[in-house]
């Protein structure tokens, strides 16, 4: 494989004068299941293989993807990519350059304790059925229950014209469990996700019964929840919501491509923008976590990247292109969903560092407001407006957790909100998730409980 990919890169550099060329071949096996109530909708298996070719010619990018490892097809694809890059480069004002990256030769094997490939499909179905039965059996008012399961195993072969050559295994186990409840015309919906790069042992951390019950319990509790009256309130956020807040409100703005697009962080490097309590990392090194890997899809080793330290913006997430523009080092954040797409800057495991408050102290900070425990979706905008939807929340009355509230969301401006963080807990939790930025990336996010002096809370009452 290395020889073939090297040969293809040589065509780009020698025949078309490319400054840079990389070839990324992948072979992927997937197993998927969808169980609705106690019905297996389908047991699914997939095989994919293909090559992504990326070249830099006269400062312009060319990219080609083909679902083939055939030498003749790859030669034709790299020629197409070079010609198109050359054509596009005719309109360039600022030719693209890449920051230096270490030349690497490595082979990375995944070592799951429980290899998903060695677990029979029947056993995977049994686990999923157990989850759904536990959910449906929790309460008669649970009306539907869905478990999606996927495992992905494969190998990536990366060779670039700088001389790097990396063979790296990929392993992901993911599951989404959702349930809905109905009582007297009131509908509720609840979901959880699991995700790991360690192996099938992720199902040992929580038993299938516990998973099903957890999702069902929330849907039932929400039946009694009231819509809240929107406005500006102090809040306590649980680790699950803090994670999404860090990811959406700050993480996306700290992606160097978005910073260059006009995001509010580019001009604030080294400046204090948040409360002293605010320290965030994006970390690809947490073994087994859903955002972990050793090398990114530009062949750069992953790292623990400090984004903001005690309220001061410390760094951005880079690929080789943006690192060159900022005169920084690439941080190993260039990720591609698969061989069909180009690597772009993506988060890995993004979290807030814990401090020393107890949950009770945080609740004291708020007195009257809301405790938002679990999220459902979130989104960022370049102007620094964030939104996080809430699937589980409660009133806070006199510093105590009160009645549940339904289908709220929080929003605000990132810079303003980071200054309003007035308490950070000592606990810590990470949750897996999937982030959409044109492509899907498997990520993790989390942190401790925190309190915020004020955010805008959306509710329909």
């Amino acid at each position, binding site marked *: 494989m290395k020889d073939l990919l090297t040969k293809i890169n040589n065509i780009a550099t020698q025949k078309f004068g490319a400054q840079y060329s990389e070839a990324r071949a992948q072979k992927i096996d997937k197993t998927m299941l969808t169980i*609705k*109530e106690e*019905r*297996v909708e*389908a*047991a*699914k*298996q*997939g*095989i*994919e293989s293909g090559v992504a070719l990326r070249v830099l010619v006269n400062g*312009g990018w*060319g*990219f*080609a*993807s*083909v*679902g083939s490892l055939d030498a003749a097809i790859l030669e034709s*694809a790299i020629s197409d*990519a070079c010609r*198109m890059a050359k*054509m*596009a480069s*005719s*309109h*360039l*004002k*600022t030719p693209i350059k890449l920051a230096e990256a270490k030349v690497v030769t490595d082979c990375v094997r995944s070592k799951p304790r429980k290899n998903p490939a060695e677990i029979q*499909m029947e056993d995977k*179905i049994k686990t999923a*059925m157990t989850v759904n039965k536990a959910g449906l059996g929790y309460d008669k008012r649970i*009306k539907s229950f869905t478990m999606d399961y996927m495992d992905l195993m494969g190998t990536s072969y990366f060779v670039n014209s700088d001389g790097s050559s990396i063979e790296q295994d990929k392993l992901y186990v993911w599951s989404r469990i959702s349930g*809905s409840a109905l009582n007297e015309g*009131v*509908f*509720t*919906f609840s979901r959880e996700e699991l995700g790991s790069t360690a192996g099938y042992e992720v199902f040992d951390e929580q038993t299938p019964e516990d998973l099903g019950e957890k999702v069902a319990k929330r849907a039932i509790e929400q039946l009694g929840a009231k819509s809240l009256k*929107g406005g500006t309130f102090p809040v306590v956020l649980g680790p699950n919501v803090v994670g999404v807040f860090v990811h959406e409100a700050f993480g996306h703005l700290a992606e160097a*491509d978005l910073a260059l*697009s*006009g995001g*509010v962080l580019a001009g604030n490097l080294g400046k204090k923008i948040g409360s002293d309590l605010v320290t965030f990392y994006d970390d690809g090194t947490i073994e087994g976590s859903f955002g972990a890997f050793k090398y990114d899809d530009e062949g750069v080793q992953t790292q623990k990247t400090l984004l903001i330290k005690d309220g001061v913006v410390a760094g951005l997430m880079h690929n080789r292109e943006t690192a060159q523009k900022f005169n920084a080092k690439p941080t190993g954040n260039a990720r591609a969903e698969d061989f069909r797409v180009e690597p772009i800057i993506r988060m890995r495991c993004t979290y807030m560092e814990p401090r020393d408050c107890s949950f009770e102290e945080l609740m004291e900070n708020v007195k009257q407001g809301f405790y938002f425990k679990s999220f459902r*979706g*979130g*989104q960022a905008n*370049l*102007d620094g*407006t964030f*939104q996080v*939807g*809430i699937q589980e929340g409660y009133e806070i009355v006199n510093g105590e957790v009160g009645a549940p509230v*339904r*289908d709220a*969301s929080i*929003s605000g*401006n990132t810079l303003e909100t980071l200054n309003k963080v007035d308490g950070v807990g000592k606990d810590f939790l990470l949750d897996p998730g999937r982030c959409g930025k044109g492509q899907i990336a498997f990520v993790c996010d989390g942190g401790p409980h925190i309190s915020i002096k004020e955010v*805008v809370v*959306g*509710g*329909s009452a």
Partner: protein
Amino acid sequence: MAVLKKDVMVNLAEKAVSQALKKGASEAEAYVYEGQATNIGIELGQISKTNRIIDRGLGIRVVTEKAMGFAYTNVIDDPIAVDSVISKALSAAKASKPDPDWKGLPGSKPYASLEKTFDYKIAELESEELVKVAAIMLDAAGQVDKRVFPIEGGIGCAYISNAVANSNGISGFDKGTVVECSIAAVAKEGNSVTPVCFEFNASRSYEVDPVWVGKEAAKLAVSALKTKSVETKSTTLILTQFALQDLFAYTLVNAVRADSVQRNQSAFKGKIGEKVASEKLTVCDDGLFAGGLRTWAFDGEGVPHQKTTVIEKGVLRSFLYDNYSAKIEGKESTGNAGRAGYLSTPSIDTTNFHILPGNKTADEMLSEIDDGLIVYYLQGAHSSNPVSGEFSVVATPAWKIKKGEITHCSRGVMLAGNIFEVLKNVSLVGSNERQMGQLISPWVQVENVRVIGK
């Protein structure tokens, strides 16, 4: 790379079906997909990226003893790989559990002949031409105002074809083209940057107006620079197609899917024939809409596309069915089995979700509003409750309408409510219809929506 011919695709599908039957499947269906796309990308104010993506594959569903197995591969030129994927589908079916409700794959029905879904001009576009169009769009955006920065966009064209065959005699082939050009821009002044403003043209035939796209995106961005807050209250909204598309996709669409209804996940259950929306509102799912972005001869199971009236003058008329959900109720599929190429099994989806237009132009709609907001883009629509239809989202941004005029932009405005209330509170449907993904719609005016200002 040359595209696969009709007979090659159909033969591959038919052969896979007959092989699966030979290997012991009681029923089988094969879906073959090819997509070839060329894109010229704009990033950070310049044309700097190009790509060409060729994706082909085969997905096969087999049934043994009422249990379903599925497998796919993108290696279709190798008979051994195809044979092995059929075996994988069969072994998946054997590991799976029988479904007592399974009543068989769909049977064959004639397909309509389509208009305006394939344009040889798109299929044969040279990348030089695409680069030219991207440059025109970029210049148009830049000429509107110096403060505009086009952050992303470009032009892409694609050829897509698919073939489907099953053991009940279905055998179909369809091909189509699509071209799309777009600009996402912000405007910057001092330390202030606007939310991302987006415009695009998408068409099945080679009809795009890059100058319009560039100018409109830029104009919106500039108009979002100066902002004032709005007060918290219930107000009149004009929802543009961007907002409608986002909001409906995560709420209303779930409610009209037959599987949601059957699984008690839809507030519309048992409400066929009842008034569920304002009488101003008529919604059809029209898989045959001339030139529709989701117009194809058949769905992901080879069932002919059709036009289904979902809501007629506010009265709920029909849900959207695939073959499985239809057979549960002893009905016929409405041709709404969606499919993510060869990678997935079918699941119910809209084709072209068409909000039928009314008589008022956009200008007339604006001029008749005394106090309200017009909303272009929504942030967080995917966090809506897909079952209850409750949403709590941010308008990024909204523009204030006062005495018939757009007066200023406002950022960070939150909108909260329930989609089923919104449907009842529709007071006006415009005539300015346009296509956006699965939606074909004009602007829609809604009364009494909760707005939370700062």
